[in-house]
Each structure stands twice: as structure tokens, then as C-alpha cells.
């Protein structure tokens, strides 16, 4: 009898214990559901962080190009080459123009001289008798004409030089300003990429020195990596190389300028990287 009652009791108790566990499981699920929304908040915080970084870096566009120039790295060299070419081209043009103008001047001078010679001959033929006075007048005329010529030449030379100066300076200024701005933006974003990667590098793996690595990074316009970064120049420490490679992968998406025309500079980015560079 007692056995029977215990059976019903134990059945009830078993149901109750299963019920208790079901309640616990539901409570756990609810609490975990609540927690899954939490990481999204964290992600939003990260976004805010990156926004803040850009906001902080934007007010300092002018000093950053200087920073880029100070770093003797391969990309700035590549960028400086077109600059030099651009500079050389206007010089060549100017030289040509100068030559042309000089030739024209010579021609004009020749004409003037021929006219003068003709006039002199006519005058000599017509006024052979009036030797002294005419000679004097001729001399005066010649003097005047020579003075005028000199003035003309001087004016033309001045004009030439001014126009040449203007052209070269304007050309140089325009091209120089544009390339300098581009170089500044490129340098700025390279620095941004470096700082973002540097934040993800485990610096303890790279030792106390200042190792330098070079990575060939293929980038998509979204800032995603198009492939795994290739190590061009190792730091000598394979752990450090791997740490930097992981850091590059972890810092996806990399910051890119909003100007899509500059993206060509980033498609195959050769990034020189110093993990221990504090700046």
C-alpha cells in the first residue's frame, strides 16, 4: 500500500522536478536572449569610436602631409615622381617658348635694321650734299632708333619673363597644390590605416626594438581586404610578422578616402609598418 502511494508520489515529484528544470531552462534562454542584444550595443560603441577618431583627425589635415614627407617610405616616392615630371614639362615648354620668342625678336631686329639701312641709303642718296647736318640728323635718328630698340627689347624681355613666370608659377601652383592635397589625403589615410592596424597588433610579440615590415595589401573599395596581405619585407621575427598580419585582417574594414578617384592609390597598397612606432 505504502509502495503504491510512494509510486504516485514519486511520479508527481518527477513531474515537478522536470517542471523546475523547464522553468530554469526558460529563464536561462530568456537571459541569454537578453544578452545577445548586448554585443550589438558594443558594436555600436565601436562605430562611435571610429567616428570619433575621424573627427579627431579631420581638424589636423595640414600637419599630416608634413608627417608623411618626414617618413622616407616608398609610396611618397612614387607619388613624387609624377610631380617632378610635371615640373619638368612646363620648364621645357618655357624654354621652347623663349627660343621662339628670341627667334621672333631677332627677325624683327633684322627687319628694323634693313629698313634703317634702306632709309639711310635713301637719305644718303637724296641728301648727299647736306653732309654735316644730315649726318648729324642721321646720327640723332640712329641714336633715337637705337634707344627705342633698346627700350622695345627691354619691354619685350620683361613681358616675356613676366608671362613665362606667370605661366610656370600658375602651372606649378595648380599641379603642385592638387598633388600636394592628394598626397596629404593619401598620407592621412595611410596613417589612419596604420593607426588602426597598430591598435590591433599584439606589440609584446614584436620585441622592444623598432622592426619594420612591408606588406602588400589588396583592398576593395569598401575597405575590405581582397586577399590575405602579403609580406614583402619581414621584421626578422616570424611571430611579429604573423601578429601584424592578423592585425591587418582584424582591422577590416580599413579606412579609405571618400574620394573614389584616390582609391587607385590604395588598390595595391604597399604599407610600411612599424609596430612599435609610438606616434
Amino acid at each position, binding site marked *: 500500500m505504502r509502495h503504491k502511494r*510512494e509510486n504516485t508520489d514519486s511520479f508527481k515529484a518527477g513531474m515537478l522536478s522536470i517542471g523546475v528544470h523547464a522553468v530554469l531552462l526558460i529563464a536561462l534562454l530568456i537571459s541569454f536572449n537578453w544578452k545577445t542584444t548586448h554585443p550589438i550595443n558594443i558594436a555600436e560603441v565601436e562605430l562611435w569610436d571610429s567616428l570619433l577618431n575621424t573627427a579627431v583627425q579631420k581638424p589636423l589635415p595640414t600637419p599630416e602631409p608634413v608627417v608623411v614627407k618626414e617618413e622616407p617610405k616608398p609610396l611618397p616616392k612614387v607619388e613624387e615622381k609624377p610631380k617632378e615630371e610635371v615640373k619638368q614639362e612646363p620648364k621645357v615648354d618655357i624654354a621652347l617658348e623663349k627660343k621662339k620668342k628670341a627667334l621672333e625678336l631677332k627677325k624683327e631686329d633684322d627687319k628694323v635694321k634693313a629698313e634703317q639701312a634702306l632709309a639711310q641709303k635713301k637719305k644718303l642718296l637724296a641728301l648727299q650734299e647736306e653732309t654735316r647736318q644730315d649726318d648729324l640728323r642721321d646720327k640723332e635718328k640712329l641714336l633715337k632708333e637705337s634707344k627705342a630698340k633698346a627700350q622695345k627689347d627691354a619691354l619685350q624681355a620683361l613681358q616675356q619673363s613676366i608671362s613665362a613666370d606667370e605661366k610656370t608659377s600658375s602651372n606649378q601652383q595648380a599641379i603642385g597644390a592638387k598633388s600636394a592635397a592628394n598626397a596629404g589625403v593619401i598620407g592621412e589615410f595611410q596613417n589612419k590605416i596604420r593607426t588602426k592596424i597598430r591598435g590591433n597588433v599584439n606589440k609584446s610579440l614584436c620585441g622592444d626594438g623598432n622592426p619594420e615590415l612591408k606588406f602588400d595589401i589588396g583592398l576593395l573599395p569598401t575597405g575590405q581586404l581582397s586577399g590575405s596581405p602579403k609580406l614583402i619585407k619581414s621584421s626578422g621575427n616570424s611571430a611579429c610578422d604573423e601578429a601584424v598580419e592578423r*592585425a591587418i585582417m582584424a582591422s577590416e574594414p580599413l579606412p579609405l578616402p571618400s574620394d573614389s578617384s584616390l582609391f587607385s592609390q590604395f588598390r595595391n597598397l604597399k604599407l610600411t609598418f612599424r609596430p612599435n612606432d609610438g606616434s
Partner: protein
Amino acid sequence: MSVGVTDDMSIFSLVAGASLPVQFVLAVLIITSLFSWWYIFIKVAAIKRAETNADDFENAFWTGGDLNKLFEGLTAGRRKPQGMASIFEAGFKEYARHKQQGRSEISDVMEGSRRAMRAAYNRELDDLDAHLPFLASVGSVSPYIGLFGTVWGIMNAFRGLSNVAQATLSQVAPGIAEALVATAIGLFAAIPAVIAYNRFASSVDRLSVRYESFMEEFTNILQRKS
């Protein structure tokens, strides 16, 4: 990346992602917890019934009336008497037998009925104490089992970390979280077991005191009768 990892952190993925020893520990703990709760509910019912039975029997016993009638009422019922009633039944039956034989001295009769009551008392106490050692061992051992699972899981997590060599929280966090599930379930099994064990132990103690005092009083009554 970190979002992807933390997105998956439901309890099921944590359990499924745990290593085999941790899963085994989790299974053991869940089964233990189920059994301990099962026994807790059984015990709650049994002790409650024993207390109400004792109350009912004490009421019936101390209202006076004939002990023979009480004994007949108990034995005539289809239910086998329980708790205090069974002690009374054992003692009175032994006493009645000695009386029927009519050849023994009072001290022998009292001694015999006392022994019978002691035996019934021990049986009752044994019934009341059933499953309590299980609850005690669940309460003391399951935290250790959970801790073992946690240590194992954290060991795995850190071993994975050594392979990666770059310490990010997102690489250790899932392993530690799934390891901590083991401790959580161990504690979930242990805490109710300990609480129930203490409560049941005190209830059984109080019941045993009631039984013993009843035995003494009933012995006195029998001695007066004979």
C-alpha cells in the same frame, strides 16, 4: 568578427560547442539535478505526510479511550499503520502477546514491547532518512563536478589561445562562457540539495524526538496497565 562570435552565444550553442568531457559533466550534473529535485519533492511529500500522521495519531491517542479499540482500529484498516501509529502498533502487539501468554513478568513484557517499538522506530526513521544521503552528497559534490568541467573548459580555451598567440577576449570568451555553464549547473544542482538536506534533516530530527518521547510515554502507560 566579435559580433559574429557573440551572436552565437545561446545556451544551446555553448553546450554544443563544449568539449566532450565538459558535455559529459553537464549531462551528469543535469541528471543529478533532476534526481535531487525528484527526491526533494518525494521527501517533501513524505515528511509532510509523516507529520500530519503523527499529529492525527497523537490527537487520537491522547483523547483517551480504549487502547484496544485504537489498536483494532489501526490494524483493521486496509492501510498499514505509519509513523507513530506503527510504533504504537508494534509495541501494543508485543504487549498483547505477552499478556495472552500470561506467564512473563512485567519487566520482561515491558522490555519486549520496548524492543518491538525500538525496531519499528528504527524502520520509520530509516524510511524518513531515505534519499537524504543522496541529497547530501549532491550538495557537496556537484559543485566540484561543475568546477571540474569549468577547469577543463578553461584549459581548452587557453590551449586554443596559445595556438592563436594573439590574446583577444573574443577568442577566450566563448570557451570560458561554456566552461562556466558547468559551474552554473553544478551550483544549480547543489544549492537546492543542500537547502533541502538541511531542512529535511531538521524535520526528521524533530519527528524522531516526537517518536522517542511517545515511546517513553507509551511505555509508562503500558507499565501502569499491566
